[in-house]
């Protein structure tokens, strides 16, 4: 049965998307916290620049990632020289590509969720002796986590569907960097309709399962922070 052939790209996709979501969420939450609740022109400019991965063509993103991570790029050359690590054509490279593409979603969701928290509650915590990190972990985050989670789920969906940047950075090596979306393209180009069908069905089922989990987790959320 052709479905078994879909298992390898499926597991790879889940691994890449999960790790990408974790990284994108941690960085997104940290940057959202750093930008703070006050909206100033400078902070809006920073947020806009950080949202670029969402609006740029994925190939442009892939190009810049190659410029940075490639063997001639400043970061890639340093990794190669000092650690002997190359991220190009590896699944770790695919994680980075997906994380960068998904990051704007976690950032925007976290920023909206944090600024929805009543500033007076944070002030109350301060007068009760809480440091800024205590205020964040005991008041702000517990009240904002649903919005943050909504952003993480969108990021996961974005990471699962990542194609252009991943192709440029990690290539499409079956069993190594070929995620579901890349495998589907590969099967269609090769005229292998049966394989394409199986992969598409697996993608659909996975997407529905993710949406169901999301609905469960966000049951009591008033509004989703869609961008």
């Amino acid at each position, binding site marked *: 049965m052709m479905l078994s052939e879909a298992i390898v790209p499926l597991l790879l996709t889940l691994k890449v998307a999960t790790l990408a979501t974790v990284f994108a969420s941690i960085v997104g939450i940290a940057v959202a916290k750093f930008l703070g609740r006050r909206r100033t022109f400078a902070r809006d400019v920073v947020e806009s620049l950080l949202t670029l991965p969402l609006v740029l063509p994925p190939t442009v993103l892939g190009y810049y990632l190659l410029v940075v991570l490639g063997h001639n790029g400043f970061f890639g050359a340093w990794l190669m020289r000092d650690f002997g690590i190359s991220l190009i054509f590896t699944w770790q490279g695919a994680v980075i590509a997906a994380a960068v593409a998904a990051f704007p979603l976690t950032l925007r969701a976290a920023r909206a969720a944090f600024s929805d928290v009543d500033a007076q509650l944070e002030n109350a915590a301060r*007068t*009760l002796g809480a440091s800024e990190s205590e205020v964040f972990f005991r008041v702000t985050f517990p009240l904002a986590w649903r919005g943050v989670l909504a952003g993480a789920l969108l990021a996961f969906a974005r990471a699962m569907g990542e194609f252009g940047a991943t192709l440029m950075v990690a290539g499409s090596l079956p069993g190594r960097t070929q995620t579901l979306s890349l495998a589907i393209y590969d099967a269609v180009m090769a005229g292998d309709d049966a394989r394409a069908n199986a992969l598409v069905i697996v993608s659909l089922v996975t997407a529905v399962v993710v949406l169901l989990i999301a609905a469960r987790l966000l049951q009591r959320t008033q509004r989703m922070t869609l961008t």
Partner: protein
Amino acid sequence: MTRIAVAIDKRIRADRREFQLSIQFESDADVTVMYGPSGAGKTLTLQAIAGLLRPDSGHIALNERTLFDSAKSIDVPARKRDIGFVFQEYALFPHLTVLQNVAFGRRRGWWNRNAIDEEVRAIVARMHLERFGDAFPLELSGGQQQRVALARALACKPHLLLLDEPFSALDTELRGQLRTELIQAARDAAIPMLVITHDSDDVAAFGGKLVNVENGRVIPPNIGATHFQTT
């Protein structure tokens, strides 16, 4: 002994309006009442004393300890001022139970643990809230929420308690009763209070030292002075 000394200036710009706050007063009374109409700058003054609003210039001291001094670049952060704040809308943590709210300031760290010490239970009992220990703030009435807010502030053993319009969110019938309860609770805790209000009935009930505020400035008390006798 001067309990509290305030002399601050702060210019606030909102939209195209400008507001100049210029407040000076001292008080060594157990209860100090700051009285004035809405928008006079009472809440801003309270926030400045608590460390939630940074004045442009001036000086704030509590029991001879300087909390803010623009000339000496002293600005003690809110968490180290030992000042309790009961917010107008109470600002109870909606994700925490009554007991967790009251215990909030008594433990450090990044987690809201459930361990409640005896002292917190005693404070909760004194405020007649034992039955609501595991309830969430939104399940309580306005008067009960206010008692939680007061208990939460007292649990930190502050050196001064700030009350921002403590009765404005309550209906008239409740006010009289809660005033008595609040005054009693603060007396029991032996913590000096600074109360702000725009309600002259509050002024009469609290007694103590009166500070009249209007349009961002302290003005001499000239309205019904016989009304405000120290109790």
